[in-house]
């Protein structure tokens, strides 16, 4: 194995690692509302979501092309750049997951790659117009569109069923929620798995394995589908809790309305090749479902915290990507890439260890919201 093959293997492994973090970071987008309303038990929810992400990843590859060719000049992208970009994105994803902030995995990825590209080749290697038109504008608009649709949907379903007794209504909407949550999971697979496929394709183009403008080979599609699905199954309980319990106290009709809005917006934009952030859409929808219901409490301060994190995602992931590039490039060659790979592994282990004490698990994910992602320990627990 030559040095370059080793580097390519590390890049592919890191990209699949990113795909995995993307999966668990975003489980909540599809399943948070179903978990908190009791429509699905937590472990069942993540399993269903994992399977549908797997299926969704094979359905459409429109978005993969955007990442691979639309954002940076692939002539200036080397394997080290891709590696550094991925390192930046994974670190930002882990940090936000630890804090329970549903930030956009897509923005982390794009930010990391763009940041590393700027560090390597300067600002002229970035297709700024592509970045604004395909990433920033949709990101700014999508939460409002999804939120408005979810608010209208929530208003309508409560209005239509206002004479239906509480019991049958909740029961009916819980069944509906299962369907709509499945659609969001499928949509997530069609949209987010594509992004890693795009990055691996970019790496293969940078390595000369594929010619510029090539589409993702089947092994890339399959491995990305499996990685995102495994990540989804692990379940990002911190983010699930923040989305499902933190923003709005969600009832089944709101859950169904918000998930339908998310699914409709994500699927239709995937069809137009828009690389939307599932997270922005899902968060917007959940907020919309709080706005659309009379007297629902929306915790706007938590929403503000999330939006602040969104604004930081592109530049912060970009900065980390650039730093990783400078380190890798400073050491040089294969050794540089191996170094940042090792640092990334150590950092991931550290985040994982920190998240265990105290942990958010399927058992306590639905505990009452007391102002923090990690639930307060139960006071009336009987010592055993």
């Amino acid at each position, binding site marked *: 194995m030559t040095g370059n093959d080793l580097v390519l293997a590390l890049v592919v492994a890191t990209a699949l690692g990113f795909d995995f973090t993307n999966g668990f970071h975003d489980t909540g987008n599809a399943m948070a509302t179903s978990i908190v309303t009791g429509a699905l038990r937590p472990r069942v929810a993540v399993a269903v979501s994992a399977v549908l992400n797997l299926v969704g990843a094979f*359905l*459409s*590859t*429109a978005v993969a092309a955007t990442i691979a060719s639309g954002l940076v000049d692939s002539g200036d992208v080397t394997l080290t750049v891709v590696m550094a970009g991925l390192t930046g994105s994974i670190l930002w994803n882990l940090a936000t997951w630890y804090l329970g902030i549903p930030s956009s995995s897509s923005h982390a990825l794009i930010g990391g790659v763009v940041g590393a590209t700027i560090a390597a080749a300067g600002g002229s290697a970035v297709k700024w*117009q592509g970045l*604004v*038109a395909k990433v920033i*504008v949709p990101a700014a*608009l999508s939460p409002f*569109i*999804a939120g408005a*649709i*979810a608010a*209208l*949907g929530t208003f*309508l*379903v409560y209005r*239509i*069923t206002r*004479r*239906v*007794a509480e019991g*049958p*209504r909740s029961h*009916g*909407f819980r069944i*509906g929620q299962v*369907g*709509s949550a499945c*659609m969001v999971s*499928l949509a997530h697979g*069609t949209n987010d798995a594509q992004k890693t496929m795009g990055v691996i394709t970019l790496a293969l183009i940078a390595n000369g394995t594929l010619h510029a403008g090539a589409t993702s080979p089947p092994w890339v599609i399959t491995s990305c589908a499996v990685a995102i699905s495994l990540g989804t199954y692990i379940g990002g309980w911190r983010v699930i809790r923040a989305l499902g319990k933190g923003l709005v106290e969600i009832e089944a*009709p709101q859950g*169904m*309305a918000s998930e*339908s*809005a*998310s*699914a*409709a*917006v994500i*699927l*239709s*934009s*995937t*069809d*137009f090749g*828009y690389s939307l952030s599932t997270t922005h859409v899902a968060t917007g929808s959940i907020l919309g479902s709080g706005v659309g219901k009379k007297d629902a409490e929306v915790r706007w301060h938590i929403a503000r915290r999330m939006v602040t994190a969104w604004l930081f995602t592109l530049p912060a992931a970009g900065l980390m990507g650039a730093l990783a590039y400078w380190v890798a490039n400073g050491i040089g060659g294969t050794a540089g890439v191996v170094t940042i790979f090792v640092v990334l592994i150590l950092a991931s282990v550290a985040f994982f260890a920190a998240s265990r004490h105290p942990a958010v698990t399927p058992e306590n994910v639905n505990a009452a919201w007391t102002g923090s992602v990690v639930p307060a320990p139960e006071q009336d627990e009987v010592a055993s």
Partner: protein
Amino acid sequence: MNSWINLDALWRIIVVGLLAGAGLPALFAVGLLALAPQPRPDAPGTDRPTAGVLGYAVAGLCFAVVLAAIGWGIAVIVNHS
């Protein structure tokens, strides 16, 4: 079409989003309403009320349309790529 913002795709997303994202849950809600027993002020305390044949028919139709719309949506995504 503007090169910085794809207005053509945007309005399609809004229209499809409204129809599928708000319309389908509303239709589902109509189905639930149809399934719910109608209150009968003339005969309180009689047998447990049911939705009746018409109710079941309307509900079935609503749910069928919702399912068909979802199936059609998936088919569009698959064929488009």
